[in-house]
């Protein structure tokens, strides 16, 4: 594929609000995870919370959209001059030629959970429950489109934990066909009962902090995050999307293929799209959830393809598993690594599980990077790999 300029990006998670704070945490090897103290979800686990985002309601014109998910999206949009960059793109190509493609897994379901906890005697949900502008999967996307003053095509990808990686592919196809001239991609997911208790029911949540690729890993730590990137056709930028791959395992609903067969094909597709091979890759940001099955199958697939040479890490030890926002969170971290010249480490990982095979970097290191990959895999056996490059 033709390289696609990434002209702006921003990430907000427990690791940091905005790129500068995130970069500081990544360089210092400081996790943003903390023991869960949520009064409304007393589960013994660690979480990645962005409490500051919830303190401020949306501005009055967007009151109907006000919920935990849109508050986090709004907070993230305000970082790193992202809104200004989008405004410049809007002026350049026109509001109707800027698309908005976001990923989420649970949208504003926290407001529905609260509505169900306060049902009327008749069984009805409270009168203030707003389905279309909070709960619907597309609600946060439509809010972001309105907040950015855009009138181009929009949609929400919801393929579990690959959602906000796959939006890069969707946007690239709109741009390639000339349907639009620029695209806002990204994703947002917030802590809610559904995912905290749901992943606990699947016995995938660790009581300890998540330790990706560790021999003693016991599962994931759930986090919340929002992030965005601006992709523009016909302009130059030091950072580019060079390729992407999207595949399905066709194996099991909630367990990855044991040898990471679908994951490997996604990575191979991304390399092929960029017209390059595994030897050109300098860093792989792993999906690395810290579940027993994911790290084993992903590690094997990565090792089969890249061998011992390529430095890998899962940055979920910084952010937690941010589910529908994981793709954009880790894409942004990969872009920061390329821009700043460093390999992020694994702050919570102590002893790498040798069975996972691939070369996991424990302590971050400064190093110039040219090409880096980011993996995101989800329930339903849904895989995405993104390949980003820095122009020399």
């Amino acid at each position, binding site marked *: 594929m033709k390289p696609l300029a990434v002209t702006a990006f921003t990430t907000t998670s427990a690791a940091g609000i905005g790129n500068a704070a995130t970069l500081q945490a990544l360089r210092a090897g400081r996790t943003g995870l903390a023991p869960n103290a949520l009064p409304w979800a007393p589960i013994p686990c660690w979480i990645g919370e962005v409490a500051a985002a919830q303190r401020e309601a949306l501005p009055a014109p967007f009151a109907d959209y006000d919920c935990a998910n849109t508050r986090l999206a709004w907070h993230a949009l305000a970082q790193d001059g992202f809104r200004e960059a989008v405004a410049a793109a809007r002026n350049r190509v026109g509001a109707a030629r800027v698309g908005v493609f976001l990923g989420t897994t649970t949208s504003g379901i926290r407001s529905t959970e609260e509505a169900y906890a306060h049902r009327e005697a008749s069984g009805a949900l409270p009168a203030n429950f707003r389905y279309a502008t909070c709960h619907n999967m*597309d609600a946060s996307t439509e809010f972001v489109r309105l907040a950015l003053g855009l009138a181009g095509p929009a949609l929400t990808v919801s393929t579990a934990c690959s959602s906000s990686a796959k939006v890069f592919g969707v946007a690239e196809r709109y741009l390639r066909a000339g349907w639009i001239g620029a695209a806002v991609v990204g994703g947002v997911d917030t802590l809610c009962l559904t995912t905290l208790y749901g992943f606990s029911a699947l016995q995938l949540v660790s009581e300890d902090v998540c330790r990706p690729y560790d021999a003693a890993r016991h599962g994931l730590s759930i986090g919340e995050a929002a992030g965005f990137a601006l992709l523009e056709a016909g302009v130059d930028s030091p950072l580019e999307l060079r390729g992407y791959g999207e595949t*399905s395992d066709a*194996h099991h609903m909630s367990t990855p293929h044991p040898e990471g067969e679908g994951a490997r094909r996604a990575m191979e597709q991304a390399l092929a799209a960029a017209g390059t091979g595994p030897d050109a890759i300098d860093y792989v940001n792993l999906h690395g959830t810290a579940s027993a099955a994911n790290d084993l199958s992903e590690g094997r697939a990565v090792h089969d393809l890249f061998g011992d040479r390529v430095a890998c890490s899962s940055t979920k030890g910084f952010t937690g598993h941010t589910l529908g926002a994981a793709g954009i969170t880790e894409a942004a971290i990969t872009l920061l690594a390329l821009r700043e010249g460093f390999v992020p480490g694994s702050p919570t990982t102590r002893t790498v599980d040798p069975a996972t095979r691939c070369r996991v970097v424990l302590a971050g290191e400064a190093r110039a990077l040219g090409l880096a990959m980011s993996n995101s895999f989800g329930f*339903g056996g849904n895989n995405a790999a993104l390949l980003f490059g820095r122009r020399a």
Partner: protein
Amino acid sequence: MRFFIESIGVLAPGLSGWEDTRAVALGEKPLVCTPLSPPAPQCLPAAERRRSGVTARLAIAAAEQALAGSSIAADRLSMVFAASEAAGEITHQLCEVLAGTREVSPTTFHNSVHNAPMGYLSIAIGARRSGTSICRGPWTLAAGLVCSALELEATREPVLFACYDSPLAPPMRASLPVVEPTALAFVLSAARTERTIAECAIASVPSAGEPRWPAWVPEAWRPNPSALGFIVLAALAAPGGSARVPLAPDQDLEIRC
């Protein structure tokens, strides 16, 4: 943007497939609405068939029809599944449990993801290419069709596109009145085959106001974002038809067949 429609699947109360729907759309026979309970998909392995929810069964049954009508091997297909509310009945079950004991069933939880129907079908038919499940609220049908056509254009490989709505439980129905199941599925291809139903061109155009529903589409189906597909099916029933469906607040998607 152009593509060929290779095959069509349809499920709604009183409609059991494309031939049936075509006859109704052409006025050759009346629509007699009979209650529809989505069949357990034959293509699913026993374990997945048992675990699948009502919405997954509905979407997969429509997709199975389209696959059966197509000459293209299932494992060559990319998939785009589009639903405004893919997990309505499961969200209801989940939220009831979360408001009470909080003892969530693992199966209910993995069925609650928006891409569960597509995931089940992928396992059943061995579809290992890209699978994208999307939502665009009331504009889901048109957004899904554009997304599918763009994927076809980018890869030149066939795409299975499904769009569906399953009835919501009463508390949520007050917000989104989906009371009847409707599901459509299409196999889109880049080349004409002996099975081709129509060649279509799509374009975004300024909105022409309210959708123009064929008279035979019952009022009860019209809140379903997927039911807008019946406007497209009506155009496909006769040669040279065209249709407009809402794509965005001020835009329609025009489909010329």
